[in-house]
């Protein structure tokens, strides 16, 4: 039997903190800037459609007539180019992943009409 070269490391790991976390009892805090999912602040959105043109996956659909902004989180690859291209900074990347679901669903946001609100 040859020398047990990893012996030191193996013995030491009996006493050191494990490399893994006891998920789901303990969860890792998501670092800032984690690419989770896109949210839209409807009060700032002007439905210009620039995010729709920038998206490489065609995940965003902007309907100016119906005043809705829709994103398919299952098509989105969390690249963040829509958030960077938005002229009104209403799109943001939240650091939580889209939860697992049994059915793929599109997230629709209703954008209120500022003219109607002013009346």
């Amino acid at each position, binding site marked *: 039997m*040859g020398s047990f*070269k*990893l012996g*030191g*490391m*193996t013995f030491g790991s009996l006493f050191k903190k494990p*490399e893994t976390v006891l998920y789901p009892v303990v969860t890792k805090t998501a*670092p800032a*800037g*984690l*690419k989770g999912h896109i949210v839209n602040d409807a009060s700032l959105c002007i439905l210009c459609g620039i995010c729709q043109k*920038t*998206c*490489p*996956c065609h995940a965003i659909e902007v309907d100016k007539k119906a005043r809705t902004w829709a994103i398919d989180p299952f098509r989105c*690859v*969390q*690249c*963040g*180019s829509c958030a*960077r291209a938005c002229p009104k900074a209403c799109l943001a*990347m939240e*650091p939580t992943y889209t939860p697992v679901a049994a059915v793929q669903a599109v997230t629709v946001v209703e954008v209120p009409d500022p003219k109607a609100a002013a009346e």
Partner: protein
Amino acid sequence: MGKATVIPFGPQHPVLPEPLHLDLVVEDEKVIEAIPQIGFVHRGLEKLVETRDYNQFIYVAERICGICAMGHSLGYAETVESLMGVEVPKRAQYLRVIWHELSRIHSHLLWLGLAADAFGFESMFMHCWRLRERVLDIFEKTTGGRVILSVVKVGGVVRDIDDAQMAEVIATLDGIVDDYTKIMNTLLTDASVKNRTVDVGYISHDEALALSMVGPFARASAVGYDVRSFGRGAYGDLSDFQPITDDGGDCFARVKVRCLEVLQSIEIVKELAAKIPVGDIEVAVKGAPAAGAQASNVLEQPRGECYYYARGNGTKNLERMRMRTPTSQNLAGMTKALAGCDLADVNMIILTIDPCISCTER
């Protein structure tokens, strides 16, 4: 006189990170010749330039391969910048190289784990991937993604690493070095590892040149070619860069070259982090590539030299984008190394070219 049997290897095999099929013509446990077959992961990504403009295509280029994601986005961005004559600010160049070298560290650690697993050393596989997790944590903190970073864009980078984060990166790398040195020591001096890798899959220096091999696969046969020694971008500001070569020419030499490259990359990241200049991280890119303009570019990915070619047609969509990855270049070398080996060594030899078949087929 044995009878020749053809044993199919792959496309699914525990040792392969990506699907590759080989028809091994075997005579009494000795492989006479091996005929490779790829095409299981061909997604036709190069044709997507027709529907995605040059800014959107970088996300397609990244997803060619999970292990070399940073390399492909960097190479693509550099090629398009060369096509359009865009000069990237210094800080962005440094950040790109830091992320690329971290990507090399993670790729080599992944490979060392797989190589150990190929001859049955599973605990080594676990240790290497445990250390790799720390590098992936660095990626997560600095870019927001573990594997697909999406941090490079045409004209610079998207995010900055501030001084506090940079210090954290260096501290993590320092924490890796201790454990990694023990692992490396085991891999390079243990008798059982040597039994499985020394004199296995030998390729001489002349054969390596004749077969146009690239990357650590070639550097283990004393071919001293490394794109980083051209000194472009932030690589030019390194005080001293020498490609790591070894003249063993066998699997053991390839393991040794990759082991030492991890330490070299850690030194490069530390040096660049200390020297990084203050400045912009991006420059605005307007317009489209001129019709008929063409540009080519080479980049040293973890697996070797990767060649990129772009041609413009006057619109925002490129006319042609081509990525020639190092593994496609090395397939001929692999076929040659497999001829005359033992059947039990096939795993190890295939792994030593670090096959990234997703890159080969796009």
